[in-house]
């Protein structure tokens, strides 16, 4: 069975009322949806609500999904649209987007546990990652998801043509390496 057939079968079984099949879909796609929402720099609670709404909508749409093998793309697109609407709502209501972005930077919302920082390399890498452009952070977050999403799902998650994913990925990783080197050489110069 191909991965597409596997996913289509899970959707079909869930549409027939199989909670176990639904749970497998949840396990397969929740990390992807979380990464998409966090890529928009939503607060953690907002990101969680956006992901939840996507799952609620899928329950309604299960019987009528036209391409069940693309349920991951359907979910990711739903999350992306809800993120954009939530950001627009926040802006409209006077919570500036800049505030949201600041709240969304993980190193600032969650004080980093000093024990975790003993893994110094992780801290350096995270700092370099948050120095990337928003586009690069969004792409790398989605590419890092476990289990790895298909390129179709990555494309839907980011509204990015499939042909752009590989070249953009290479550029973003090059930039990440450059930021890491700057960080290491900067630390060396200051010591």
């Amino acid at each position, binding site marked *: 069975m191909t991965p597409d057939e596997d996913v289509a079968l899970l959707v079909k079984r869930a549409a027939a009322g199989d909670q176990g099949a639904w749970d497998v879909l949840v396990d397969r796609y*929740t990390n992807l949806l979380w990464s998409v929402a966090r890529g928009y720099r939503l607060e953690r609670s907002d990101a969680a609500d956006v992901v939840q709404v996507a799952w609620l909508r899928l329950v309604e749409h299960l019987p009528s999904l036209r391409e069940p093998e693309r349920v991951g793309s359907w979910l990711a697109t739903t999350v992306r649209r809800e993120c954009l609407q939530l950001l627009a709502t926040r802006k409209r*209501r006077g919570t500036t987007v800049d505030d949201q972005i600041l709240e969304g930077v993980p190193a600032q919302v969650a004080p980093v546990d000093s024990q975790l920082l003993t893994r110094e*390399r992780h801290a350096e*890498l*995270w700092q370099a990652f948050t120095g990337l452009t928003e586009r690069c952070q969004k792409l790398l977050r989605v590419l890092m998801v476990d289990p790895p999403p298909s390129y179709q799902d990555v494309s839907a998650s980011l509204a990015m043509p499939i042909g752009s994913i590989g070249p953009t*990925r290479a550029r973003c990783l090059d930039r990440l390496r450059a930021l890491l080197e700057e960080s290491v050489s900067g630390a060396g110069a200051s010591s």
Partner: protein
Amino acid sequence: MNDEELLEELRRTVVVHDPPPPTLRAAARDAFGLERLSEELVRLIEDSDLQPAGTRGAGDVRLLSFATEDVEASVQVTSAGGAFDVTGVVTGAVSAIVLQTPAGAHDVILDEQGRFHRAGLVGRMLRVGLRMPAGRTAASAWVLLG
């Protein structure tokens, strides 16, 4: 370090710094068990959050209008502190309105003018259902109230 190794290291870093909340999967699993109000869709035809700034709505008030071919419901949602109140009016042959949140579904009786009100709903998600004659039902998509 090649691209794959760098991505793998980054993956381990993200797991440490920004993991999904532990409750996220449980909530997604529970979504499957919620009452399915109807397969007939009530379309969202107007949403104050989709209007240009300053034209409609204010503060934490959201105005939503839903419709089927023969029924229309206008709903005002007022959010405060993790809860919300819903006030609205229905035109057409509707016997009751259903306000559903992930915590449960509530039937709300209409007055003679088709108006309804329900206070103290919990959370930030809402689905509006309509009960019509002959057992017909219809329901909106889920809305994230923002």
